[in-house]
């Protein structure tokens, strides 16, 4: 029960003041003063600057560590957790860190259904055994041209899926994010077609690089990063790595995906990182790594050439 943190504890972890905030409380007061001053100046709010590491989150044990980002520097925890796209909690990069505290991540269960012999409705701890977590350091490339390197904790996706015995009809896997307007007030505005949905072809889902994450930087995932369970597909644009998953469905046909529904010309089903295929409105040849100023070159499949064989017979500019 390593990642079980909310039960039997009268104070929720989200209510505990992080150590660093406590020790830095004078500075925090100064920041509040500065924020109050800037409110009167309307439109001059400084960007968020929060705690260095959220020590309120339970730490997790890992059995194995794999570095899969070519030895590149891991992005700061502060940056990974305060620069998020999670539209259910707001459309700015700062909003999820501010608003995702409303999300209740325990108890959490996942429905697995569709083209499989052993469908189920399973508790998170039953789905992901907290005793056998591994750490993987992956590159993460957003379709918006920013990128980072993150140490995820979790398990490979394939063995989890196999437990539900997908049939030969299972050609795709669809994933769905929780959709609860009470916990996610921003969904009321209908920017995207909720619940957020994503999908992979079954062979993509079974690839050893496809990963289910429950943690980050040695601790439980912060809510804004997709707690308690998210997909991590490092060779695809970030929006494919769906957050806060409540349902996994094996399908015979290619499932609908949220960004594709919004802009079919701009966001394809595959959305593999590809410097040669531009987004209609911007080039994908380069990216800005968080923590760096000048843009760097984007790598094919985000630097994971081992997935190329999945697409050997496909024209990647048609199936973008």
């Amino acid at each position, binding site marked *: 029960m390593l990642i079980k943190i909310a039960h039997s504890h009268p104070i929720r972890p989200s209510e505990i003041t992080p150590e660093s905030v406590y020790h830095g409380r004078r500075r925090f007061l100064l920041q509040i003063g500065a924020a109050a001053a*800037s409110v009167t*100046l309307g*439109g*001059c709010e*400084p*960007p*968020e*600057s929060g705690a260095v590491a959220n020590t309120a989150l339970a730490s997790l044990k890992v059995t194995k560590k794999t570095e899969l980002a070519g030895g590149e520097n891991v992005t*700061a925890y*502060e*940056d990974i957790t*305060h*620069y998020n796209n999670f*539209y259910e909690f707001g*459309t700015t*990069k*700062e909003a999820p860190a501010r608003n995702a505290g409303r999300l209740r991540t325990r108890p959490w269960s996942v429905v697995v259904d569709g083209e499989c012999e052993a469908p189920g409705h399973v508790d998170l701890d039953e789905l992901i055994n907290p005793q056998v977590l591994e750490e993987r350091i992956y590159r993460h490339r957003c379709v*918006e041209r*920013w990128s980072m390197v993150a140490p995820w904790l979790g398990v490979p996706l394939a063995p989890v899926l196999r437990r539900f015995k997908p049939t030969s009809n299972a050609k795709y896997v669809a994933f769905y994010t929780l959709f609860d307007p009470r916990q996610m007030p921003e969904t009321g505005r209908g*920017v*995207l077609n909720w619940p957020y949905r994503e999908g992979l072809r079954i062979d993509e889902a079974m690839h050893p690089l496809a990963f289910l994450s429950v943690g980050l930087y040695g601790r439980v995932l912060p809510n804004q990063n997709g707690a308690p369970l998210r997909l991590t597909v490092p060779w695809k644009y970030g929006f494919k790595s769906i957050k806060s998953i409540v349902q996994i469905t094996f399908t015979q046909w290619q499932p609908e995906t949220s960004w594709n529904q*919004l802009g079919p010309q701009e966001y394809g089903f595959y959305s593999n990182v590809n410097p040669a295929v*531009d987004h209609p*409105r*911007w*080039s994908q040849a380069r990216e*800005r790594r*968080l*923590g760096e*100023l*000048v*843009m760097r070159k984007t790598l094919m499949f985000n630097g994971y050439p081992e997935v190329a064989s999945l697409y050997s017979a496909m024209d990647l500019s048609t199936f973008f």
Partner: protein
Amino acid sequence: MNHLLPWRVAAWALGVVPLAFAVKWTFQSLLGPNPVEFLEHYTGDWTLRLLLTTLAMTPLRKVTRLSEPIRVRRILGLWTYAFLCLHFSIYLVFDLGLSVAQLGADLVKRTYITLGFSAWLMLLPLAITSTNAWQRRLKRRWVTLHQLIYPAAILGCTHYYWLVKADTREPLIYLAILLALLAFRVQSVGISLRRRREQPPAVRVQIETMSASTSSERP
């Protein structure tokens, strides 16, 4: 003359204060995980805010019947251009690495870049000819030339609308304010045309000279 001073102070403050904050936050490393993007958005936002404020001065004069709004219009216009140049420079240096070839590619392929660049180009002669000497030299053509601010404003707001991924609320607010400001002008042009038609010819000449003298009024 004294009652112009608060207007001038306010117009300068609209440029100096946001710039001072940007400099302060940069030196304090308070720009967040993606400082370049923050500054691009910040300078872009302030360009549009200042541009719309500049365009609001003529309606403000008509509503309040004060001449001060027109007399601080040049200050606001030049601060608009200063923020636009900052915005463009950050993109040139950090997004393009000062590569002319990449700028060319972006101008051809990326519609929102084409729009933004065109707006910058249109406002360039306006900034250059903003001095009293140029105003005298160009006479009535100065007024015609400075009407370039209208297409530039439309391009600027559309540039913002075009680059947003899904949440279009903010760009739509800017576009709505711009349309309201333009509608005010269409309406007042309509009224003055109707008045002209209703006036006998002798009076019409008088009105034309009057309007020419007010529109070229120097700040």
